[in-house]
């Protein structure tokens, strides 16, 4: 059954009000923690390290009081692509290039198809990483209001201001981009309903029939882009009308404050990240 509401249902970037420790953390601390853990994630290829990191991410979700099902429901639309990619990786990428201490077993070698245990490991580890990154991105955006996130980013970029990095502008672009996601998603839902009402085949192709789905998408993409341009132009006028003149000398409504708990959280995650990166080759499997 087609469900138009799902088009609007994007889990990453959706702030869910709450009062957990993670919600109360300073956005700068949260961004640092997420960066550190993402770094640790991307350099570890062993099963054990990834299991540990996955467990850590699940623990963070618990601490943030978000439901795991909610976070994972955001993966659902991308599932066909993930599966297709994984299958291709498994079938053609048997090269034992993954640094694993396990012996490489060749399962199948037939023409271009080359399946080995190391290829399998690569696929499984990639999947785990994908889920981990989804979780980290969700935790960051689900527990932090957009404005706070942008202010945090701006503060963290400020030191680079001397090198000519326009911190305020970058954070403004960031906040605008994220703010447009739900607006465009809602517009997409409305368009899908309008086009379906006049006979378009939206959703009728089913999740697995890419070609029909892609063709049906055309009647959505064109008006969606036109609408995005229209909104962007309106935004320019609105900003001009309010005398927006760049970041120089702007003050804020929200003052961010780092507490000792934020410091401890950063310290723990930094130690963990360094440990995972330092010992990445020492995991037994």
């Amino acid at each position, binding site marked *: 059954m087609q469900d138009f509401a799902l088009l609007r249902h994007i889990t990453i970037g959706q702030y869910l009000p709450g009062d957990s420790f993670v919600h109360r953390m300073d956005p700068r601390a949260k961004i640092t923690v997420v960066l550190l853990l993402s770094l640790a994630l991307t350099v570890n290829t062993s099963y054990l390290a990834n299991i540990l990191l996955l467990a850590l991410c699940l623990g963070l979700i618990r601490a943030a009081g978000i439901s795991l099902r909610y976070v994972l429901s955001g993966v659902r639309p991308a599932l066909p692509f993930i599966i297709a990619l994984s299958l291709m990786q498994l079938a053609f990428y048997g090269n034992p290039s993954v640094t694993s201490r396990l012996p490489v077993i060749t399962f199948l070698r037939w023409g271009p198809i080359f399946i080995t245990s190391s290829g399998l490991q690569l696929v499984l580890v990639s999947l785990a990483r994908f889920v981990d990154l989804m979780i980290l991105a969700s935790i960051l955006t689900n527990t932090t209001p957009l404005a706070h996130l942008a202010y945090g980013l701006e503060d963290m970029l400020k030191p680079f201001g001397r090198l000519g990095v326009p911190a305020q502008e970058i954070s403004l672009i960031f906040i605008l981009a994220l703010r447009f996601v739900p607006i465009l998603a809602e517009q997409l839902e409305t368009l899908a309903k309008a086009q379906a009402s*006049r006979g378009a085949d939206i959703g009728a192709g089913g999740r697995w029939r890419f070609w029909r789905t892609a063709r049906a998408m055309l009647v959505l993409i064109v*008006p969606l882009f036109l609408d995005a341009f229209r909104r962007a132009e309106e935004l320019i006028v609105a900003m001009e009308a309010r005398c927006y003149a760049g970041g120089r000398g702007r003050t804020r409504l929200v003052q961010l404050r780092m507490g000792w708990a934020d410091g401890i959280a950063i310290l723990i995650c930094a130690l963990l990240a360094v440990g995972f990166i330092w010992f990445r080759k020492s995991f037994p499997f």
Partner: protein
Amino acid sequence: MTEPLIAIRDLHYTYLPGTPLQAVALRGASMEVYAGEIVGLIGPAGAGKSTLLQHCNGLLRPTEPGHVIVDGQDLADPTVDLRRLRQMVGIVFQHPERQLFETLVGDDIAFGPRQLGMSRAEIRRRVEWAMRVVGLDFDTFVDRPTAALSGGERRKVAIAGVLALRPRVLILDEASAGLDPLTREEWQEQVRRLNADEGMTVIVVSSDMEEIAALAGRVYVMAEGRMVDEGTPAEVFAHTDLLNSLGLGQPVTSWVLGELRRRGYDVDPYAIRLEETVEELCRILRS
């Protein structure tokens, strides 16, 4: 008594159930629409009007208790032919001009009939008919690029795109919002003609009470996901307290008649059509 063309019984609906963002939109709404009528639907923002109407052509499906029966078919049945249903019940949304995607006017209007696999001659006939109904001259406009049209013309094209499917029921969900007064009058005349000449059943959602009073034969008032009032426009608009508590207001004629009665003049509070109100005013002025 004849069967209603659309019958909605005790319908409940929740958006994104089971997520932190769930929102209850309908709490037992019921509505009946008979073939050939024009039904008005009014209610404050968030009352669930759009949610209710999107059930009528299967954009939303009943998932909780409640029934939507269109032309004798229960839409809770997963085997319902959505294509046939959507051809029968057409919805024009707010700002329909934003849904155009083809380069040329004619192609955009022909989209629906083409999807249904009709012959070229039939498609042409329908496009011509739809353009005539919305007041666009076929020869002048059919090969114009949609990008070169004014906002009002684009809206006409979008509405023609829905009409080209020749639906039996036309749902106008705030479709006239933002039209200038002259265009609005023209538009109301077109809706009335569609209803009278083509026998099209029409459901109008509008925040413009004058429009509801001018078009509808029967009005439903909705609030917080259910119906709170129903009747002829004259009856519904006489319930001043209810309308005020919902922040809806009345048509000017209804307000004038109510105010005159409050001040002790003997006028008919149900004479809310402009000509009738004028008659009433003349009568008390003469006496």
